[in-house]
């Protein structure tokens, strides 16, 4: 039978039952490869349930540093009897299946075209550990040990990671060392290790880090100066709030009083969460909330208020599979249309599209400057893949000389020196007016904020001319926004290319890999990674300068493409859709197929 030869280039998938402690073991596996200096990206494929259902952990290893998903599984670790048949079928010809040989496979399950590696995981765990819970957990370490032999993972790297995890709890450390060795030596004796798919130490990681996007987003909020968080739990955004709370405990507890230099409320629902953000921002604290599609739908009315009353808002949308409850534990980029135009009437919101944890961090921090500068909602469009999976990312960086841009806020002194002031007077011609905070000045600067129509002095009015004038002025902020948001990232082919590839967020990994695949086939493609809405001039000229443009998205309707057409008046005929919306991250192969 043909077998797959490769070094530092493989897809390994673990098939587990959720709630059995496998996640921690599996993450050690990726961590170890990372420590060996080899680019790696793991993805959790988990059910919307707490215990007892199939869950998968898919790890891609790529010497070339391709971090998107890849089709075809080289090695599958089958620990879940429920999904075993499906798992066996998913291994690609010539690939390997490691299974728990405590119970032998049924002959019908033995595919002739793949290699079977039987490891009596449960048996070994039971032989060595008394408590059922220990057995269950350490069984996982046994297969990690076996993998280290089979794939040539450096044993001391694994030991180092175990030490870091269990720290001072020496008993646990030893227990885990032993379990790893059990697996290691069993594999060593029974199979010819290492396999011809294997790992070799490299130095390809540099100073990169491995981090979940949601944690980076939370840190971005800390560094961006957020002191108020109001949120409502929803997968896959929950860990943003939880990480923010953890970081805040460490970094924001008043050294003297031991009290909190932050306030977090778990709201009664998403409407209330957004209401609290609006109230806090109106009152001069940096505030944000994080949610997913259903929450954004519920926040629609409030987003319209913030847009029209011109109150800064920072909202993190960690997208999942829609519509409705949809696939809560799968990924999509399908809230673009909603986020761009949320609420009734003529509204339009600023969107940011991070693709890496580093960008989750920087864009979230920037979002507060943008929101306060523009006095409007700014929505960070992350997704489940980016938010809840570990990603290889450039290290996070903060420029200590940087100062927050709190936008146009008048102090008591400013007010004293002002002849006349109107909350909605556009004195600078950039569409942005000067606001005041409650409690600033005894006699000047008080005004009434409302979602109903008002004149330049914040007085209620039903005069249509004034109303239209105010709408136009608010609309004019859009041009200012265009000049402030992060520009799209252009990747030009060596030779002039007629084909353009446009993508954003987590589609970027597969898209950039696709560009290389096409180059290898002699097809030159210019690539543009969109990073924000409104689109800058660079996007416009990219569309103009290419005959044929493909827009890669993880939704069904081609939502970003619609934005491009609407906002840039581009001819739809030349913009073709490449879509993936089955809830799994898109692959480079799918993109290449889509361009045919």
């Amino acid at each position, binding site marked *: 039978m043909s077998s797959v030869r490769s070094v530092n280039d493989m897809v390994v998938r673990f098939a587990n039952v959720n709630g059995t402690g496998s996640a921690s073991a599996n993450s050690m596996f990726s961590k170890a490869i990372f420590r060996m200096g080899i680019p790696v990206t793991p993805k959790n494929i988990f059910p919307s349930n707490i215990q007892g259902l199939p869950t998968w952990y898919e790890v891609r290893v790529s010497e070339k540093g391709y971090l998107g998903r890849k089709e075809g599984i080289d090695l599958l670790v089958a620990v879940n009897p429920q999904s075993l048949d499906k798992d066996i079928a998913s291994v690609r010809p010539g690939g390997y299946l490691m299974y728990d040989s405590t119970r032998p496979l049924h002959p019908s399950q033995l595919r002739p075209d793949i290699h079977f590696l039987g490891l009596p995981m449960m048996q070994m765990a039971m032989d060595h550990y008394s408590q059922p819970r220990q057995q269950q957990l350490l069984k996982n370490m046994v297969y990690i040990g076996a993998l280290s032999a089979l794939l040539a993972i450096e044993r001391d790297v694994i030991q180092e990671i175990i030490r870091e995890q269990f720290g001072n709890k020496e008993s646990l450390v030893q227990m885990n060392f032993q379990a790893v060795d059990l697996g290691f030596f069993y594999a060593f004796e029974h199979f010819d290790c290492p396999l011809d798919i294997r790992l070799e130490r490299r130095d390809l990681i540099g100073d990169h880090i491995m981090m979940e996007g949601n944690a980076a987003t939370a840190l971005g909020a800390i*560094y961006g100066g957020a*002191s108020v968080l109001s949120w409502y739990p929803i997968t896959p955004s929950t860990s943003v709030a939880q990480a923010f709370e953890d970081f805040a405990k460490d970094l924001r507890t008043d050294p003297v009083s031991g009290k909190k230099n932050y306030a977090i409320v778990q709201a009664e629902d998403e409407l209330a969460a957004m209401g*609290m953000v609006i109230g806090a921002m109106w*009152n001069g604290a940096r505030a944000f909330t994080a949610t997913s599609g259903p929450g954004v739908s519920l926040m629609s009315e409030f987003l319209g208020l913030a847009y029209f009353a011109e109150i800064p808002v920072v909202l993190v949308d960690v997208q999942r599979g829609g519509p409705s409850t949809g696939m809560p534990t799968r990924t999509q980029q399908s809230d673009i249309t909603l986020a761009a135009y949320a609420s009734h009437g003529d509204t339009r919101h600023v969107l940011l599209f991070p693709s890496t944890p580093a960008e989750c961090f920087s864009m979230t921090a920037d979002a507060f400057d943008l929101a306060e500068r523009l006095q409007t909602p700014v929505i960070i469009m992350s997704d489940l893949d980016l938010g809840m999976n570990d990603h290889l990312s450039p290290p996070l960086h903060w*420029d200590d000389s940087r100062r927050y841009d709190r936008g146009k806020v008048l102090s008591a002194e400013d007010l004293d020196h002002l002849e006349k002031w109107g909350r909605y007077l556009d004195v600078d011609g950039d569409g942005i007016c000067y606001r005041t905070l409650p409690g600033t000045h005894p006699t000047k600067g008080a005004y009434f904020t409302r979602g109903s129509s008002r004149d330049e002095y914040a007085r209620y009015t039903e005069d249509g001319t004034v109303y239209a004038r105010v709408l136009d002025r608010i609309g004019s902020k859009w041009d200012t926004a265009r000049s402030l948001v992060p520009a799209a990232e252009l990747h030009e082919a060596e030779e002039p290319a007629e084909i353009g590839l446009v993508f954003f967020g987590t589609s970027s990994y597969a898209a950039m890999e696709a560009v290389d695949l096409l180059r290898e086939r002699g097809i030159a493609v210019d690539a543009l990674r969109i990073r924000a809405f409104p689109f800058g001039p660079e996007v416009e000229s990219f569309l103009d300068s290419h005959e044929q443009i493909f827009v890669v998205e993880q939704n069904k309707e081609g939502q970003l493409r619609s934005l491009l057409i609407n906002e840039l008046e581009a001819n739809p005929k030349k913009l073709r859709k490449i879509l993936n919306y089955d809830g799994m991250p898109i692959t480079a192969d799918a993109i290449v197929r889509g361009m045919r």
Partner: protein
Amino acid sequence: MTYIRPAFRHPGLPKNDLGYSRADYEGAISTLCAGCGHDSISGAIVQACYELNIEPHRVAKLSGIGCSSKTPTYFLSNSHGFNSVHGRMPSVTTGANMANRDLIYLGVSGDGDSASIGMGQFCHVIRRNLNMTYIVMNNGCYGLTKGQDSATADPGSISKKGEPNPFQAIDLVGLALELGATFVGRSFSGDRTQLVPLIKAAMKHEGFAFLDVISPCVTFNNNVGSTKSYSFVRDHVNATANIDLVPHRDEITADYDDAAWVDLHDGSAIHLKKLSQGWDPTNKQAALDRLQASREAGEILTGLVYIDTSSRDYHELAHTAERPLNQLTEAELCPGNAILQQINAGMR
């Protein structure tokens, strides 16, 4: 309002200890119907703030949507105001308070705004014991949308003829008590002698202070049975199916010691029962019983029903720093790059 109001004040005007005259606490001219109970409450708020020697600009006034929610324009024009969206005043006020615990928060709402669309937020702001005064101007109907029934008791229901509103009426006072509000009172828009002190007490309370203020809607009288006095008008109304005539009315007032029947514009009346002088408002169980008793007697209990004198507000419960969060400096907010590099290290 953002334009500077005419500075001229009559020199002889009385001033409070801070040197502010009553006018410094007033607002724009009301656009509510002549005689609307809400205007009386606005007046009481002005009086209370004047007597409390509050600096007007240290108050933040927030509301939802409705005639009642318009009133913040009619008082405290030197205070920032926020007319949010329908039923969501509690969350916006919560956020504002989280950002700056040093201001005085005055929330104004209506029975539709709070007991229907805002029910969830009303319950949860109570639960957090947010430090604010929450006034519901309760007219038992949706005034601004022309008089549909609301979920609260119709003040005119006692004398009602014919078919009563079929559904359970929600008693916001009972609800607030059940949910553990630390200050609960009720009054009547026309009873300034009772209302002003209650508002003052509420604004001084450390935590969530709820006031249910019965405030008749002079225009939308969904009580046909008892409105003979309007035959002329009503003929027009029936005939044209077009409620566009609003008779001018005087504000209804009531100043009473123990109990009183107050006539409403529609000819109906409500039975107000004042808590006796000796009443101990710190006894929760007693408050619940007393309330239940007057309900059964068909009375509307008014006065300070309950107060928890040991109330600890949201920030105390959450251990927030004393200094308002919106005054933290960039240095206090941003941990800096050195720490970030340590965090990076932990991610390798």
